[in-house]
């Protein structure tokens, strides 16, 4: 069954392959190969949307990506409701369901259209002027209301269930645009054997050959030639042909972003197909063949459904076999609309009249139109379109004024001329140049290795386009290393050609008029709005754009920019090039977040690092916390325990018996070589030359400015080998810091640095029973206090696997850290756990680790220090080698500020009420009665409930802290001020006897 406006014998679609679809709940039938736009037009539907601000009824302006009006919502299910889809590019599939947007209660009767009547209120800059006060109302009242009324589509309610692919590609020649120019360039480049990628946004290649019925190349119809050429290119191994693929961004050094729509045109895409695929292409040479976009005429009510670009009407007829009306009018300022009139007339559509602004044009198309009996009116203007939900007439007047007449029509085809698509050229940072003769911006100065060919370069005529494109393709390939090609250049037998036209408002919409002659359809910007912006002081085109919103939104002014510019220039009394063009920015057309994100979401958003014992801890019911990318066991609750109870039990058990803790995430770096000790002397504040083999030392690393950068225990395994540990978060930057100095400041030192963080699993066994737990499993190491004193390291075996066994403590108890190859980490942990259980030891997590170290006053770099803390501030002066003449930070430490009195120093705090636990980060004052703002003298860095002490404990950075021992200070909080006493930093075993206990 043929839809009413489908013309049999016209178009290229097979009418047998139907597809049913719905729009706003009503069912229609289209043909496979239709776009949603062509299918609706075949059914006589022009009204498809409401405009952004005035809610005016809108139809299709175009047949392509430049469409500003026909934005619809495509609904597959609750999670797949894509808003703002241009109906002119959405391919039809059987069962497609689309809805109009921005209307309530219905498209034909939209309450919001009251805005149109009230439009004098809504002129340019309206939002900026009207909603200034009261200030609070913007967020709560104005913005939500405006957003609801000035709507585009609605977001889906559920997370996007589709997946998006991503690929990198490299080629010698990348051709952007698959019309006649792009195909010719690709053919020439491909012949040389270099890698070629040809991309076009449409489902089929051919560009304007889709509608140019007059084109004949190599003895064939132009479109048929294009399909043959594409088939030939696809068969070549060195060529990748991408359809439905938009080049959206042109970045530095010929890096071009393409997005391929893989499955939006399919009925049932299936889970295996990505929805879209992002191509990140690096090309040696780029050929830009992006064509040109037709401009509309700017006259009153030029937005009525049925008023559209002449080339669009031609595309609907010649490609889709659809007549956009039965009685059409034509309004033009150049030749190209004549071709539309001729094609429609030949297909049996009545052409009521051609209205041509030009006074006395001549040429073959004009003669042909006249010969077909079409009425032609030169020197006249369409000053208004009649009708509301669909155009019903056009009012024609002599362009210089005078009596008019109204001609009934059901569509108006318009053409003000063609704008070269310089978007990608401009994005490549090329500078456009204004051609005063043809009144258009064309590529001027190039910034990258690219070339523009065909209509986007301002080249008119098929013959000239193919000549230029073929030569450019061959040249680009040759420059990129291709061999001489053999193929013959395509021969143009017949082609169409036109240029010129007009820019700005047409007669009837000029200065002084108040009619709604739209420049930018999507943003409801009229010629009057642009003039008003100039009157209100917007003299830069960038300001005019932002004040009026001309050229913004999803179409980015593809049809409106030149008109807007011309009107502003006229009003400013300046030539167009002096007013300048607004900047073209990526993306060319909207790109989904999905395609940019690709697979990097959910679990793949960021890598998760798990230690060797992760599975064991998970099975024990551990609660994990994120530390950088690591998952670390936070605490191990037993049945019925909350975090507090679990941590208290763990803390007490470690000090009473012992505990096992996974310390694998600590950074580990092996420093090896004849100059290893010299290097350590330079990178750490401590002395290392005299550290005996088999002993450990707590090291502090500074930046050149004298502030603490990292810390950790370092073991000397051999005279030329140090096993360095770093903080968990600091591991990569410490390695970078070390490499930096080794490579650039101290390259004379013979040292190798190796990150061994992932090589060794580290199991800390701490507590009075720690030696008893480990000893039965260890071979070849004397674990007596004499054989292995505190702060020593031994190499031997545990459970039959190699170990680097450290005797060290971050709890203040006798303690060990068992390093084993990561692959054996879980097995060794399980063996140690079995031993530990005989003694009643516990597994403990990071929270308990934090509490136990705070009870001993051991700092955590990055928690108790913040990049402005010196070793002296932290009470660690003992770790700075006083006799050393150089280390990184030695000069910084003597800076006037760093040796001044009154610096913030790390101290302990005890709350007067032992039950009160301070908040970390809370500010400290000396006098709570002083007026606000109070003088803050420090802040709490660490604070915990200590079950072992039976009270809360805290560490804090306080100005002149060590001179305040015993003083009472105050922590003002929202619920009252907390009194604290300044104390030393050690809350448990001040003498350190338990290290050997």
């Amino acid at each position: 069954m043929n839809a009413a406006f489908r013309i049999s014998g016209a178009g290229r679609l097979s009418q047998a392959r139907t597809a049913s679809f719905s729009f706003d709940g009503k069912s229609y039938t289209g043909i496979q190969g239709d776009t949603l736009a062509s299918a609706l037009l075949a059914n006589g539907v022009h009204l498809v949307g409401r405009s952004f601000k005035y809610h005016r009824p809108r139809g299709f302006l175009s047949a392509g990506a430049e469409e500003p009006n026909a934005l619809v919502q495509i609904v597959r299910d609750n999670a797949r409701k894509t808003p703002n889809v241009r109906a002119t590019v959405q391919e039809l599939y059987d069962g497609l369901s689309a809805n109009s947007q921005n209307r309530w209660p219905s498209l034909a009767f939209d309450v919001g259209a009251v805005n149109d009547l009230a439009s004098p209120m809504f002129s340019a800059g309206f939002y900026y002027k009207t909603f200034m006060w009261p200030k609070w109302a913007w967020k709560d009242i104005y913005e939500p209301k405006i957003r609801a009324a000035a709507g585009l589509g609605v977001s889906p309610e559920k997370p996007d269930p589709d997946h998006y692919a991503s690929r990198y590609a490299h080629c010698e020649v990348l051709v952007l645009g698959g019309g006649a120019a792009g195909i010719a360039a690709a053919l020439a480049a491909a012949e040389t054997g270099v890698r070629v990628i040809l991309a076009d946004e449409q489902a089929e290649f051919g560009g304007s050959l889709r509608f140019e019925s007059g084109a004949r190349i190599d003895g064939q119809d132009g479109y048929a030639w294009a399909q043959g050429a594409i088939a030939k290119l696809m068969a070549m191994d060195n060529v990748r042909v991408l359809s439905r693929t938009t080049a959206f961004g042109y970045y530095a050094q010929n890096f071009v972003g393409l997005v391929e729509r893989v499955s939006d045109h399919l009925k049932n895409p299936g889970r295996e197909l990505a929805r879209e695929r992002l191509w990140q292409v690096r090309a040696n040479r780029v050929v830009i063949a992006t064509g040109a976009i037709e401009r509309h005429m700017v006259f009153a009510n030029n937005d009525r459904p049925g008023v559209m670009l002449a080339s669009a009407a031609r595309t609907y007829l010649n490609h889709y076999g659809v007549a956009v009306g039965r009685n059409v009018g034509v309004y033009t300022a150049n030749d190209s609309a004549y071709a539309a009139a001729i094609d429609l007339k030949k297909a049996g559509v009545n052409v009521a009249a051609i209205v041509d602004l030009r006074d006395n044009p001549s040429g073959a198309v004009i003669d042909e139109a006249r010969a077909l009996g079409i009425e032609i009116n030169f020197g006249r203007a369409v000053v208004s379109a009649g009708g509301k939900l669909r155009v019903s007439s056009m009012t024609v007047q002599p362009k210089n004024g005078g009596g008019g007449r109204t001609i009934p029509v059901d569509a108006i085809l318009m053409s003000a001329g063609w704008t070269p698509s310089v978007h990608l050229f401009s994005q490549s940072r090329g500078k456009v140049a204004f051609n005063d003769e043809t009144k258009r911006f064309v590529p001027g100065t190039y910034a990258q290795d690219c070339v523009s060919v065909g209509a986007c370069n301002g080249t008119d005529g098929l013959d000239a386009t193919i000549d230029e494109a073929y030569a450019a393709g061959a040249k680009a390939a040759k420059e990129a290393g291709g061999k001489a090609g053999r193929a013959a250049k395509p021969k143009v037998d017949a082609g169409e050609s036109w240029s010129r036209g007009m820019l700005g408002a047409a007669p009837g919409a000029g200065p002084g008029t108040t009619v709604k002659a739209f420049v930018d359809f999507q943003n409801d910007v009229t010629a009057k709005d642009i003039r008003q912006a100039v009157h209100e002081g917007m003299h830069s085109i960038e300001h005019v754009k932002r004040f009026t919103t001309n050229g913004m939104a999803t179409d980015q002014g593809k049809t409106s920019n030149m008109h807007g510019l011309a009107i502003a220039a006229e009003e400013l009394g300046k030539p167009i090039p002096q007013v300048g063009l607004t900047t073209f920015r990526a993306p060319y057309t909207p790109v989904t977040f999905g395609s940019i994100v690709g697979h990097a979401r959910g679990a793949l958003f960021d890598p998760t690092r798990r230690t060797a014992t992760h599975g064991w801890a998970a099975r024990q019911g551990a609660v994990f916390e994120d530390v950088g990318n690591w998952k670390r066991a936070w605490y191990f609750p037993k049945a019925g325990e909350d975090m507090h109870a679990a941590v208290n039990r763990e803390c007490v058990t470690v000090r009473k018996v012992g505990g096992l803790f996974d310390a694998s995430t600590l950074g580990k770096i092996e420093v090896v070589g004849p100059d290893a000790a010299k290097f350590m002397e330079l990178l750490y504040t401590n002395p290392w030359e005299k550290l005996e083999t088999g002993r450990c030392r707590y090291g502090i690393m500074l930046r050149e400015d004298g502030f603490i950068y990292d810390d950790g225990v370092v073991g000397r395994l051999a005279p030329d080998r140090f096993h360095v540990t770093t903080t968990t978060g600091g591991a990569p930057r410490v390695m970078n810091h070390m490499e930096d100095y080794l490579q650039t400041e101290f390259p004379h030192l013979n040292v190798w640095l190796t990150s061994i963080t992932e090589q060794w699993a580290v199991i800390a066994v701490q507590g009075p029973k720690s030696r008893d737990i480990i000893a039965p499993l260890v071979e070849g190491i004397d674990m007596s206090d004499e054989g292995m004193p505190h702060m020593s390291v031994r190499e031997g075996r545990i459970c039959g696997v190699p170990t680097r066994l450290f005797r060290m403590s971050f709890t203040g108890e006798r303690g060990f850290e068992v390093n084993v190859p990561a692959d054996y980490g879980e097995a060794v942990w399980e063996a140690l756990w079995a031993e530990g259980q005989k003694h009643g030891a516990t597994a403990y997590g990071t929270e308990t680790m934090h509490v136990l170290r705070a009870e001993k006053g051991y700092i955590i770099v990055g928690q108790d220090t913040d990049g402005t803390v010196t070793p002296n501030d932290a009470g660690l002066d003992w770790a700075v080698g006083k006799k050393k003449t150089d280390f990184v930070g030695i000069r910084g430490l003597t800076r006037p500020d760093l040796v001044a009195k009154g610096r913030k120093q790390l101290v302990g705090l005890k709350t007067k009420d032992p039950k009160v636990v301070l908040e970390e980060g809370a500010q400290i004052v000396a006098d709570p009665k002083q007026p606000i703002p109070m003088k803050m003298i420090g802040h709490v860095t660490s604070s915990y409930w200590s079950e072992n002490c039976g009270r809360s404990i805290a560490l804090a950075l306080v100005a002149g802290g060590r001179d305040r021992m015993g003083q009472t200070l105050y922590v003002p909080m929202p619920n009252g001020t907390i009194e604290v006493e300044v104390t030393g930093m050690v809350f448990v075993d001040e003498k350190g006897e338990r290290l050997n206990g």
Partner: protein
Amino acid sequence: MLLIRCPYCEEERPELEFRNAGEAHVVRSANIAGESDDDFEKFFFIRANPKGVIYERWRHIHGCARFFNAVRDTVTDKFIMTYKAGEPKPAKLPGASK
């Protein structure tokens, strides 16, 4: 995304493999402990931050891991040349900025 030529790998590689490491040719004194406050200020705090040609350090961190020097135009973002760490500032730049 820029392509950067690593002078050690002798290859142009994508920007993602590199990490900027600040201004180049800032020399740490052999007798840093004896430096005056003014000299230390110049060494540690003061940077050129030019509009135009900058000499800076980069690290091919996800490649050979070497630090090297680069000359870049901060206006166009173009890399004019790269050279190995320790080599002197080039006397003449290829195709010096116009």
